[in-house]
């Protein structure tokens, strides 16, 4: 900068200045380096072999940063090199730094060098300091390091093997595992075990084998856990000192020299419990092993932690059935409230608690008589109970026998037999071992009572009530039972009985509930007697397990419960009044604790009656019902499944299945209770033919009808003259005035387009002209539409054609028939089906002129005339209308005759063209033959059918002749 300032003055004058500045700078720099960064002096090494730590100390002037390098001396390999900040000892200015080696420090020699550093500058390296390993030539033996290290599970450990001088390493094993090896020096080899697992109590062996000789060098490593004790608690037994207990917690896997050491309040505890002479009030447990330590604390007041010692010198003083138990205490508890537990063991074990200050004696009451007991005692603090003390040693004693109680006796009657039965005495009631029972029973008429002796274990005696009652005039009987036991004979228990012979009242059902069988009854207000309810298995015959309960007077209900009740078993309950004084049976019930399905099925039988099958079955025996039967279900089997036919009530045991056809049928009847159906009784039946009777009936009916018809025909034949006179009187020949030039022709009618046409009689007759009225069942009006438009030859029903000859007194006027219509109509007629509801006409109307047929008159039946028409020869046949035609086809007379048909005459007189038009209307041109009056003839209509008349007359003549010839 000075140079810059002066540059304006003179450039040549600046050179000496720059040289001076440069020299001063170099001089200053060299001066600073030489004075601050001193080489570390007095480097010393201190090895901690168990921890594998190397402590390095040196004097390094004022520098605070140093570089340290650690080398394996033999191979000059760098183990560590880094810049460190060392701690300075303020007193002496000594620096110190500690390095932890991965390998044991014994493995090989290490060289340490240090230099000071500040910024980029550093001092010279110090002289190397060497920590000698155990692999130096002067130590020629084989070795392994570390010797006996203790590490935590999961850690890593590096071992080194120093082979003997002159040997070469062959293998290193960790337990049974061959390890990878790293050479550290000429004789030293290292290996590392990673993630080590817990070792055995004797540790895991690590050893190396050299080549050539089986000389082993090795070490043992112990892998475990630090201590984790728990549940420290301190208590007192003598009310002065404290005893502490704890749980060791998980196993540390370390034993022997490495086992966990415990101390309580700094007092060493050789065992798992430890005491203090005074009650400290708070305690600290310290657990230590090579892997760490753990601390637990506890604190409490003395009164809250009293655990009495075990009672000693127990004695038992026996009265008859009471015992006094005494004991002594090791310590003075006289001022301490104690609660003591006494365990009594005989056939069962009971515990009784007693309490008191300084308790040392208890009285045990209500023991069994003549019973051996074992008793022991333990105690605790009643106030602030902490825990029970230890049990005392047990002592044994035996109570004395005594007179037994009287038994509860009852007389169970089952028809003519009975049982004197008594409830077994409890241990308390027997008061000693029972030797036997004495049963005495008598009746007033008997001179000497009967006495029976029964051994212990019996609780009933069967008696013959019939024989017994024969001695008694009033049917009163008595029995007593006494118990003989070790302690004496009981007072007798008396049971009176009156044999009335009366059947009990009707059984009632009782339904079991969770509290038992509920029974209730009315109380007789005047009675002061108590009650007794007795129950037993309803179907038990011998040695029945009868039970009973006695009830106080005035009681009106009870629920009977017993552990002996079984599902599906029917129980009888009997209520007796005055059980102590000739009891009277009041009511009876039956019930099931749980209903089941019947255990057996009905026996099913089948019988065929015509086309019906009658099913019958028997009742299921009571013992097999296992519940209250509710009814029967009747099924028929349909292959694999049953189809319900009927559900019958319990009173029905027959059922008729109707209308079955042939083949085999299988039926099943199942009885059911509230629990469901039983398996069912099954029967099959093969049906015989059942239709013969019906056929016979039909044939018989037909025969009867035939007989009647034959009789009628015979009668008619015999009386045909009368019949003819009555029904077909002779009709005079019509006298035709004038010209019969009118042509006759068919009356073509077009019926309604329906297949069915009813031709009915027109009730009101047109006086001017008769008409056959055809009325279609439906759509009469529509039926007349378009008749003239109908095609000539169709398959559908066509027009109706009648040869109605209307006799009109009026002159017959010539008509002008439409030949084409006539022709077509004649064809259509062949397809006409006509239903004639009746023909009622006089014989005279059927008489035709007998003049011969004109050559011009021809019958021309339609070729397609239905055969049925001809076949109905016996029946009514519509007339075949002659058709005036120029056809050259020959007349087929036989066919016309064969029709044999009756030809109602048709005679139409059309007064006006309008009428002529109307003839096409079905309403006016159709008429029923029955509507034809006997005074009128059915003649062809109009003149255009003149020639047809001849043919009609010929047919009428034939019919007349027939009737005439039939005259007798």
């Amino acid at each position: 900068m000075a140079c810059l300032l002066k540059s304006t003055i003179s450039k040549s004058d600046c050179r000496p200045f720059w040289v001076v500045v440069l020299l001063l700078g170099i001089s200053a720099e060299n001066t600073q380096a030489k004075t601050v960064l001193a080489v570390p002096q007095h480097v010393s090494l201190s090895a901690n072999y168990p921890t594998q730590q190397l402590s390095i100390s040196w004097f390094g002037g004022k520098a605070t940063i140093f570089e340290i390098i650690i080398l394996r001396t033999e191979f000059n390999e760098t183990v560590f090199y880094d810049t460190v900040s060392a701690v300075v000892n303020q007193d002496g200015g000594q620096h110190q730094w500690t390095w932890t080696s991965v390998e044991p420090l014994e493995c090989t020699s290490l060289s340490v060098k240090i230099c000071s550093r500040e910024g980029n500058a550093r001092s010279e390296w110090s002289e190397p300091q060497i920590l000698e390993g155990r692999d130096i030539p002067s130590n020629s033996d084989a070795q392994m390091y570390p010797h006996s290290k203790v590490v935590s599970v999961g850690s890593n450990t590096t071992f080194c093997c120093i082979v003997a001088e002159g040997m070469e390493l062959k293998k290193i094993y960790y337990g049974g595992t061959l390890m990878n090896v790293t050479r550290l020096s000429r004789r030293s080899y290292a290996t590392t075990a990673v993630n080590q697992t817990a070792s055995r109590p004797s540790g895991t062996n690590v050893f190396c084998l050299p080549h050539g000789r089986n000389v082993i060098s090795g070490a043992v490593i112990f892998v475990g856990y630090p201590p984790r004790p728990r549940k420290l608690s301190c208590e007192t037994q003598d009310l002065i000192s404290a005893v502490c207990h704890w749980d060791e917690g998980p196993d540390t896997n370390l034993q022997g020299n490495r086992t966990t050491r415990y101390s309580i309040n700094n007092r060493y505890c050789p065992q798992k419990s430890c005491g203090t002479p005074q009650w400290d009030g708070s305690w600290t447990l310290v657990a230590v092993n090579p892997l760490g330590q753990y601390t637990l604390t506890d604190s409490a007041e003395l009164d809250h932690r009293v655990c009495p010692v075990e009672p000693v010198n127990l004695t038992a003083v026996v009265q008859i059935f009471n015992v006094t138990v005494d004991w002594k205490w090791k310590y003075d508890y006289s001022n301490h409230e104690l609660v003591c537990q006494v365990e009594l063991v005989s056939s069962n074990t009971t515990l009784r608690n007693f309490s008191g200050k300084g308790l040392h004696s208890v009285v045990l009451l209500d023991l069994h008589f003549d019973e051996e007991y074992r008793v022991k005692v333990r105690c605790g603090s009643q106030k602030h109970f902490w825990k029970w003390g230890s049990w005392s040693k047990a002592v044994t004693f035996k109570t004395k026998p005594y007179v037994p109680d009287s038994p509860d006796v009852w007389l169970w009657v089952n028809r003519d037999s009975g049982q004197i039965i008594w409830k077994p005495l409890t241990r308390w009631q027997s008061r000693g071992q029972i030797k036997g029972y004495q049963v005495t029973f008598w009746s007033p008429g008997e001179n000497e009572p009967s006495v029976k002796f029964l051994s212990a274990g019996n609780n009933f005696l069967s008696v013959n009530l019939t024989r017994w009652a024969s001695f008694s005039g009033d049917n009163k009987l008595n029995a007593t039972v006494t118990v003989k036991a070790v302690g004496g004979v009981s007072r007798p228990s008396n049971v009176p009985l009156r044999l009335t012979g009366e059947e009990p009242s009707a059984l009632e059902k009782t339904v079991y509930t969770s509290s038992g069988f509920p029974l209730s009854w009315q109380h007789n207000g005047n009675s002061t007697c108590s009650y007794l309810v007795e129950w037993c298995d309803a179907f038990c015959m011998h040695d029945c397990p009868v039970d009973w309960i006695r009830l106080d007077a005035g009681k009106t209900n009870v629920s009977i419960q017993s552990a002996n009740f079984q599902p599906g078993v029917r129980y009888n309950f009997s209520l007796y009044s005055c059980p102590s004084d000739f009891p009277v049976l009041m009511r009876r019930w039956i019930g099931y604790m749980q209903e089941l399905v019947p255990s057996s099925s009905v026996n099913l039988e089948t019988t065929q009656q015509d086309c019906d099958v009658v099913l019958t079955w028997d009742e299921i025996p009571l013992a097999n019902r296992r519940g209250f039967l509710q009814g029967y279900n009747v099924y028929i089997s349909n292959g694999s499944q049953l189809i319900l036919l009927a559900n019958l009530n319990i009173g029905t045991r027959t059922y008729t299945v109707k209308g079955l056809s042939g083949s085999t049928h299988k039926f099943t009847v199942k009885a059911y209770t509230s629990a469901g159906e039983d398996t069912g009784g099954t029967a099959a039946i093969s049906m015989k033919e059942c239709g013969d009777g019906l056929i016979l009936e039909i044939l018989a009916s037909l025969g009867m009808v035939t007989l009647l018809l034959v009789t009628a025909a015979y009668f008619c034949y015999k009386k045909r003259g009368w019949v003819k006179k009555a029904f077909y009187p002779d009709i005079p020949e019509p006298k035709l005035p004038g010209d019969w030039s009118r042509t006759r022709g068919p009356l073509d009618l077009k019926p309604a387009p329906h297949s069915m046409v009813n031709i009915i009689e027109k009730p009101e007759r047109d006086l001017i002209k008769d008409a056959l009225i055809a009325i279609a069942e439906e759509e009469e009006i529509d039926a007349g539409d378009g008749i003239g438009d109908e095609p000539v030859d169709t398959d559908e029903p066509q027009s109706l054609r009648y040869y109605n000859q209307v006799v009109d007194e009026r002159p017959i006027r010539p008509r002008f028939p439409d030949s084409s219509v006539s022709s077509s109509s004649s064809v259509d007629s062949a397809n006409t089906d006509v239903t004639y509801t009746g023909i009622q006409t006089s014989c005279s109307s059927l008489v035709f002129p007998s003049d011969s047929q004109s050559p011009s008159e021809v019958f021309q039946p339609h070729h397609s005339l239905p055969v049925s028409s001809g076949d109905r020869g016996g029946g009514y046949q519509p007339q075949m209308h002659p058709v005036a035609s120029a056809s050259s086809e020959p007349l087929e007379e036989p066919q016309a005759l064969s029709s044999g048909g009756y030809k109602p005459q048709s005679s139409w007189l059309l007064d006006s063209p309008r009428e002529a038009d109307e003839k096409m209307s079905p309403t006016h041109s159709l008429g029923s033959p029955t509507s034809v009056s006997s005074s009128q003839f059915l003649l062809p209509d109009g003149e255009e059918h003149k020639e047809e008349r001849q043919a009609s007359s010929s047919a009428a003549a034939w019919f007349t002749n027939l009737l005439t010839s039939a005259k007798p």
Partner: protein
Amino acid sequence: MAEQEEQPLTRSEAPVPGSTQTGRAVALARLLQRECSQLLQLYKERETFLLDHAPDGGRMVSLSTESEEPSAEEQVQLLHSALRQCLGLLHCLIKKEEEEWGKLEQEYETLKMHVKTRLERLLYTTRDLVGNEDGTLEVTPDHQCNEEVDGPFGLKMWTYNVLLELIHWADHAEKTLHVLHTEKGGTEEI
């Protein structure tokens, strides 16, 4: 395994004179030898590295005899002395193992106690065979138990050597007692 063998004899059993006594001593030594072998087998099953180790053959227990050709009785007396040292070694082994490892496997510990009892009984037997009335033959362990073992691994190696020593002297006892038994007119087969 140990339970299947003969139970340890009690010290109160009265000595049996003559060849019967020597025969019993031979049988006892034979039983001791067998049990020591079983104990070593158990030990090697636990410390498997010993399978690769060949013992150096040196003796831990040595005898010093004054006569060049001792008699059978003298040999038994020497044997008695060696067995006392063996008992001392066994006592020391039990102590050191207890300190170092605590309780080890039950079978190993049980068999170790059987060997100890059997060895004590053999000492009583040899004393009864060749001892004087003045009680010059002791039956107490003769070992100071002051060996320095080099860590746990060194203890294992030392234990191995002790077990080998026990087997050696049990075998030697059987042979020596058999010679005495033969001299006293006992049968060859025992």
